[in-house]
């Protein structure tokens, strides 16, 4: 592992922030040769590619985040599989969940859809 827990926590927080601002755009990628239609999210920033998804392909925790550079994996992390309450691990656990939720909202254009629903409802008396 190249990044330590504190660096991971900061990176995840930053990714979530730029995703929420829509400065970073993600795409959904279907897993090749997968009959169950599993997918993960992918975003590129310069030479770096980030991939994010559910480890078991079911959309729920544990989640993984990978950093790729030049087609090779640079580092990766998963939702910690223990209840150690160190601040950084808690940040990573909560951060991965929040990031996955935010990316899902961005990819599925949730805010725009909600705005559309609200505008439809606004026409009703």
């Amino acid at each position, binding site marked *: 592992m190249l990044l330590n827990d504190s660096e991971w926590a900061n990176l995840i927080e930053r990714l979530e922030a730029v995703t929420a601002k829509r400065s970073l755009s993600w795409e959904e990628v279907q897993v090749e040769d997968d009959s169950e239609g599993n997918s993960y999210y992918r975003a590129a920033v310069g030479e770096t590619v980030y991939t994010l998804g559910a480890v*078991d392909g079911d959309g*729920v*925790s*544990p989640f993984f985040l990978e950093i790729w550079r030049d087609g090779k994996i640079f580092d990766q992390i998963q*939702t*910690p*599989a*223990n*209840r150690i309450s160190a601040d950084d691990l808690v940040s990573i*656990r909560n951060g991965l969940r929040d990031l996955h939720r935010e990316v899902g909202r961005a990819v599925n254009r949730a805010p725009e859809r909600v705005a559309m629903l609200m505008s439809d409802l606004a026409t009703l008396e």
Partner: protein
Amino acid sequence: MPLLDTSAAPGWADWLGLVLTVVGFLVAIIQATRARRVAAAASEALARAEKRLHMDALFALPASLADTRGELNWAEANDDMSVARFALLRLHNRSSEALLLVADDSFDVLEQKKLARLLRRVVKSSLAAKDQLADAPSVAAAIIDVAKDFDELTGQLAASTTNMRMRVSTNASE
């Protein structure tokens, strides 16, 4: 030269040709009928085999789910998140598969509906429990809902498969 010569009487070769043609048609019809019977018998045998496999899978379901309950009990007793995660994954997958199995017409319609409702609840609560594993204070706390749904499901499943077994054996003896 006319296209059709109606003045010429048919000779022995014409009659022989006619007879051979009729015999050929008869042989073809008999062969086609036999082939259709064989295909129908093969289809019936395949349908029976599929039904048998389907019922075997249904009868094995309570034991298969009980194994998963055993794993969950162990994970709960030892507060082991990894074992709980895989047990919940298995429970989710087996319940999803079982939803397809309970569509069998050997079940009473009311039992089908009850089982399908309980299975859908377990499918949902097993996924929710897996999602909560890391955040909950213990495995026991994370699996409270799914354990309750699961126990209700196994009770209903045992009753339904027993009824089905009785119905199948009654039909077989008639």
